[in-house]
């Protein structure tokens, strides 16, 4: 048990009596009420719990919360701008009507956002490699691919 200071979506949280092995996933969901990060398997196979830790995508079910202290955590709730402006990926997800049940899509978006932060214009192969860790039982992979290409194109159009 320890007391942790966690920075999540730009906000500092002091958390007391956190078990040493408690995964970040359950701190986010049960302590902070950030339920957009979802539980699917608990063994890092499905990617539904993907968040950014220090800017890199991680499976929150495998990262002990205390290992996240000292690095900024971004969850799906923090992907849009503080003023509510959606991330280009979020807008593309809406425009392409990507989701079916939608349960995996927080994790899909966080993996895709990490990809776009590294690659301005990812190829299909780049996308496949970056997204292979995120399962979608409904089978929305084709729309996810299209939405990522679209968001990358939009961002480039804005920046050039």
């Amino acid at each position: 048990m320890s007391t942790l200071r966690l920075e999540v979506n730009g906000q500092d949280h002091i958390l007391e009596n956190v078990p040493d092995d408690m995964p970040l996933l359950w701190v986010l969901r049960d302590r902070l009420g950030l339920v957009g990060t979802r539980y699917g398997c608990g063994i890092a196979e499905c990617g539904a719990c993907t968040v950014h830790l220090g800017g890199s995508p991680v499976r929150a079910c495998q990262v002990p919360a205390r290992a996240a202290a000292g690095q900024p955590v971004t969850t799906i709730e923090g992907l849009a701008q503080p003023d509510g402006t959606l991330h280009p990926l979020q807008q593309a997800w809406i425009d392409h009507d990507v989701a079916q049940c939608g349960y995996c899509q927080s994790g899909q978006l966080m993996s895709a956002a990490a990809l776009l932060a590294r690659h301005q214009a990812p190829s299909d192969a780049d996308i496949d490699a970056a997204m292979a860790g995120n399962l979608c039982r409904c089978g929305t992979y084709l729309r996810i691919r299209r939405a990522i290409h679209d968001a990358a194109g939009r961002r480039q159009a804005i920046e050039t």
Partner: protein
Amino acid sequence: MSAPGVDRHRGTRSLQTIAQAVLTPPERCPGLAVARLDRRGFLQLTGLAGGGLMLAFSLRPAGAATDPAGATADRDTLAPSAYLRISTAGILIHATQPECGQGVKTAMPMIIAEELDAAWSDVEVRQSWISEADFGRQFAGGSTGIPRVWLPMRRAGAVARAMLLAAAAERWGVAVEECTTANSHVLHASSGRRAAYIALAEAAAHLPVPDPDHIPLKSREAFRLLGTRITGVDNTALVTGQPLFGSDQQLPDMLHAAYVKCPAIGGRVRSANLDVIRALPGIESAFILEGNGDLTELKPGIAILGRETWAVMQAREALEVEWDETGAARDDWAETRAQALRLAEAAGAERLAAHGDTAKALAEAATTVEALYSYAFVAHAQLEPQTCTAWYHADEGRMELWAPTQTPQRAVSNVAGLLGLDEAAITLHQLRMGGGFGRRLVNDPVCEAAAIAYRVGRPVKLQWTREDDMRHDYLRAGGFHALKGAVDPEGRAVAWQNHFITFTADGRTPVFGGHLQPTEDLGHLIANFRLERTQLPWLSPCGFWRAPGASVFAFALQGFLHELSTAAGRDHLEFLLEILGEPRWLEPDNTWALHTGRAADVLKLAAAQAGWGRPLPEGHALGLAFYFSHAAHVAQVAEVSVEDGQRIRVHEVTVACDVGQIVNLSGAENQSEGSVIDGLSAMAGQQLTHEQGRVRESNFDRYPLLRMPQAPRVRTHFIQSDWAPTGLGEPVLPPVAPAVCNAVYTACGRRIRHLPISQDGFTLV
């Protein structure tokens, strides 16, 4: 054949009821054949499946429908039915059916908005409460949602539109026939006047509600919204991570719960170290529940309650249980499979159907083919593990449930029966489901959460682990088909014999998914036909898995048809069209049945769009399959290549589909693409192998889902016929595996006859 100590009849009571709802015989399904029915016939149909749907209009006065969440509509609100409310605040449409990813929360309000002539951007959609009186039957299953609501919802929109027109005409002192509507406004062209619906709602609310049975509906050509692509109404909430799902529920003072059951279905708790568990950090209580004897409601188990999910998960690790497995399932897949393979060589135990003289035709035929097809048991593996939140307000004797379920009304009666509560004392909030695929037709997690909450009197969120979910599923049944066929010297199919080996829990009737109707086997169109069945004992419960039965029968039957056409040296498309014969309904006067003309049309369309017969890149081949299920005609062509005789790459799948009018084109295409990927996923590597009644695969490391790099291009072509729409959640799945496996044979000469294909060393790359 049944295990001692387990009452098998009682054990599947709920499943029987669900089966009646989901597998309603085609001639009794509502809403479809409406174009050909008189009013009396329509009322009979809606009466059967819709309960109070029509009464909702005619008996409830404007504004009287009670919305337990949002209070009764006011006098200034137009609410001619419970489906919609129009006031100066806006246009609100209720989504009445459970949303599990099939898209009804968007598609169904579109139907109302179309007849209302509302601009979609003006419409707010809210999930409705549960009420058979207001909405008729509320459930998601059997791809019946859209056909069930098609007419009632169109009428709901048209009734409101008529009242708004009348209100405007009265206000302007003009004849109602001179007024028209568009984009949430009434217009009077000759005077140029125009009034918004929201400004007319109060006046309209005081007018009499017209008879919905006689309200004119739009012709297809007048549709502005239906058939277009509309993005899902929850999409903004989804992409920003808002709480939507069952597992997202949070209540003050809420406890988190696990419910630990015997890994062999039917086992009971003999003893457990509950004192140790109760003393662990973060744990509030732990206790044993005996179960009610119904495997679809409450199995015996141990409830562990704590202040956080993680504390509960950790406590489970320390739990030591001695199970009493008297009467528990002892299913063993390896033994059962070996037994089935032996039985497949003999005649079936019973004959389900026969015509002609199959034995003689097989003996005398120029060319005969024999093959054994099989498929393993699989799990649903919806991405959100089962969950339910329950709160028993003991002082009021009232139960409140937050449940992601495909059968919310059934869940209420399940819980009422289980706890001896009046149904009126139970409030169920419909929540979005993280996938359903048929698993959430059964309400065992709702019963568990309710039974635990009833005991503790505080809000309780029950969260299954992935392992719980896979070990306590209602399986898609495995099965075997020993097939024999013959073709004559002209290459025509002349004999077809199918010895179907399936499973039974009670020694009499097949498990769910083990019902193969003779008409479902296209072999029955061949002159000499024989369908036999043998049932093997199997106690782990089976249930409804996306396109039950069809999802696997298609693999065996469409694969073997290709074997016959290959043996005959015929083109597969031509061979299938010849078997289908002249255009006709296969069951006279049943427009839910297979129509050979519609079947031929989708086959020809898929072939044309995929370029059937065109030159292909080296190593590539096309495979074709057709299947009819859930009143939908679907054909597919898969383009594949095979490396090293084992590594299969599916490049593209072309889907041609006739489900009548398309409601939301975006949702329809999404269902088609998803069904193809789902079908490939199950085909590639999914199987549950039981040992001593225990499932050996309990998470995605040993039960793989398809990943993005394996997903092929999917192109979907709809034939939008004049038939009323039928459901699209399931019927695109069945033809996928046979189309791919037929293509693999053409590409490399290896015939795949067992699912998953990983058993024979094949992989999907």
